[in-house]
């Protein structure tokens, strides 16, 4: 990349180097792309990350185990519940702690609601990047209700800090179950409306079908995870294939991209897999609310946590794919090392390889379809 920045540009050539970001309406945060263009066609787009680096992993070494929980919210503030959950599970493994069943269920409920909220932002911004403003606001409208529900549950709308090492912070408030079910009834209808409004709109399909195709093998090579991987036709979901928490008790399908309107692995598949996943998440929340057991919501955890020296790894299926936490303990009350593995960072890597030959407008579609979120890239 240094070469690219320092390369002398031939003044007589048709090529132009374009700094796509860091302040740009469709980079979803502060990301920079150095784009070599020939007119509207790109020769290459090189992502330049690091504008939102906040040393979150280093901070983990300076605060206590429970004290790090609010920081995990900031790793992915669009889907903070998964960042909470991943860290909590990693520390629980260090402590060899059993989490009460009710807490497991509450985690699943909160996470799946959060997945819907995150996917609504993802598909909403995607439609906006393609130029349709209305679907995005419809998505944000539905997300608002989810924010209200989660606010009623844990008091926060964005950075939840809801999960705890050993369980969750609060039990379901009174009347919450009925409100959530009413919302889900409405939401299932909303998905149909959303499809009619935009998903199968001719222009929208033409913009996304067969654009930026990522094959299954290529997706695995680059370490794509979550909906991006499934969009490429790879049937892999941690919730089913390496189950954790309450997920073995639920029945749900794993939507896989199979070329809904074009080739498997194109931008539309990555988009539509998310739409289908929201319906599945809605099913999971219904089942969880149906079968939630009574009991404690927090295991007995000592005030001053001092896990034995050792290491633990947790993997959860976040809205942006597999999120892994690697926590090393040296026996003190602060972690020796906290490492978060996030989906957006690996997704950025593939852009350089997929971009040659795309139009500038397709780059926007590609970034949006990979659902990269700047804080998750840089941490």
């Amino acid at each position: 990349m240094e070469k690219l920045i320092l390369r002398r540009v031939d003044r007589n050539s048709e090529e132009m180097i374009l700094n796509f970001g860091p302040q740009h309406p469709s980079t979803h945060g502060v990301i920079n792309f150095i784009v070599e263009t020939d007119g509207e066609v790109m020769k290459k787009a090189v992502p330049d990350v690091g504008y939102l680096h906040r040393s979150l992993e280093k901070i983990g070494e300076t605060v206590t185990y429970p004290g790090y929980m609010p920081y995990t919210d900031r790793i992915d503030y669009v889907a903070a519940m998964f960042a909470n959950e991943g860290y909590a599970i990693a520390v629980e493994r260090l402590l060899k702690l059993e989490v009460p069943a009710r807490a497991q269920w509450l985690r699943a409920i909160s996470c799946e609601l959060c997945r819907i909220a995150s996917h609504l932002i993802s598909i909403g911004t995607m439609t906006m990047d393609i130029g349709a403003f209305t679907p995005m606001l419809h998505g944000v409208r539905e997300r608002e209700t989810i924010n209200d529900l989660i606010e009623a549950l844990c008091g926060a709308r964005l950075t939840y800090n809801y999960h705890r090492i050993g369980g969750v912070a609060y039990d379901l408030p009174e009347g919450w179950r009925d409100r959530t079910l009413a919302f889900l009834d409405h939401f299932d209808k909303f998905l149909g409306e959303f499809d009619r409004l935009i998903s199968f709109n001719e222009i929208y399909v033409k913009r996304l079908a067969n654009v930026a195709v990522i094959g299954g093998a290529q997706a695995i090579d680059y370490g794509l995870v979550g909906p991006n991987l499934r969009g490429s036709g790879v049937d892999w979901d941690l919730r089913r294939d390496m189950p954790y928490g309450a997920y073995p008790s639920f029945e749900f399908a794993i939507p896989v991209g199979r070329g809904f309107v074009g080739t498997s692995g194109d931008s539309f598949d990555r988009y539509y897999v998310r739409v289908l996943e929201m319906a599945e998440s809605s099913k999971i929340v219904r089942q969880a609310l149906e079968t939630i057991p009574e009991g404690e919501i927090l295991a007995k955890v000592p005030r001053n946590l001092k896990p034995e020296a050792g290491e633990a790894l947790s993997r959860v299926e976040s809205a942006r794919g597999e999120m892994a936490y690697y926590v090393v303990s040296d026996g003190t009350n602060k972690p020796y090392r906290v490492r978060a593995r996030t989906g957006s960072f690996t997704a950025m890597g593939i852009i350089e390889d997929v971009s040659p030959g795309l139009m500038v407008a397709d780059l926007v579609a590609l970034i949006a379809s990979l659902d990269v979120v700047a804080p998750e890239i840089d941490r």
Partner: protein
Amino acid sequence: MTANAPKPYAPRRSPKTVVLLTLAVGLGLPSALFAAILFLSPLTKPEMLGAALGLLGADFASWSPAGQHLAYGAAIALLAFVLLNFGAIVSGMTVWWEMRVSSRMQSRVGYNRVGAGGFFQWVADAVKLLFKEDLVPADADSLLFRASPYFVLTGFALMFVVLPFGESLIAVDLDVGIYYLVSVTALVVVGILLAGWSSNSKWALFGGMRAAAQVVAYEIPAGLSIMVPVLMAGTLSMQGIIREQGAWPWEWFVFTNPFALVAFVIFFISQLAEGNRTPFDLPEAESELVAGYLSEYSSFRFALYFLVEFGNLWVMSAVAVTLFFGGWQVPFVDAEAFAAARGAGPLPGAGWWGLQALSMAVFVLKTLAVLNLIVWIRWTLPRIRVDQMMTLCWKYLVPFAFASFVATLLWQILVARVPHVELVTGLVLTGAFLLVAALFLRRTLANVAAAGDRVDLTNW
């Protein structure tokens, strides 16, 4: 802890005085402008100006030729002033209407702060822009950068010369009216291209090039489809084209000739493209090009671009109504009725003014209907890609425009032989249109029901 459901949204109620003031201005301002156009456009014509001044007590006939010419000039300047103001104010009101419609479509509250229903927001925005720093980027081509908004504004203002408002309500009914209109529209793209080039910004350059490519390409299908009503009317004059159509839908060009219907669709798409409206808003695609050719503009120059962009909606709609939807033709009132009401005196009678006002109302209502359609489209569709925009133009619109042009030639021969064919097609196509509209409405209601929603028009 209970999970209280959030309070449902209650519309903000404005005080009664604000509502009354808003209504007074919102209805009074357009009415005043329309009245000014209604009275000024016939009275500033040379044949009536003398009589009109006579009413004021001046003996026009005894003036020197220089004085008479000066009077004509002053009258024309007055009309031009009114028309330019009309363009600016209609542009502002369109912004308000568009924002209100879009907020309803998007479940937002929308404008509701300045005046009742936020009606004066456009005034506030314009005033705010006037007070902003007028920034010219250091490396920009200062002269061109400053000049380009005026190209755009000039192109826009010149369109009003041939824009009809009613039977005799037009600044100048040029013989080459529609041809003139197409020519001056091209001035707008010169301004946009200059803006893109002179800003010395890569985004602006992208936007400017896209705009140039788009407008130049789409002028071809637009020009060809305009030729269809011209062929049917046998004249390029705007009023002449309207006079050849009737008042009832089955007498409009769009329905009397099936190829004119095709031409209308092509014309409408091309106009969207030339006006940079969704799905052809590529030159200022905010998710790709930040703000396209407008990226570096601020303050009043920016306001001028916006004035033209939204004012253009009126022009687009008015031209579509003129060419295809029977313009100002009022049912049961034909050319003889207008002539009879006019009387033989130097100044027309009161009945004639009434008929003029009626024709103006018909024209304005039709124009607003088309304008509303453009607004709906903007907030529904995504944007197409630049290569798709070119494909659509050259591979589909241009051939179909040529085909409908040639077919209309043959059609006119057929009509000359069998005059009744026009009435039959008119009735059939009008019926078909009503059927499609009914099916569309039914489908919409079904979709609304499927989304678990209901039609609610109370919350304005």
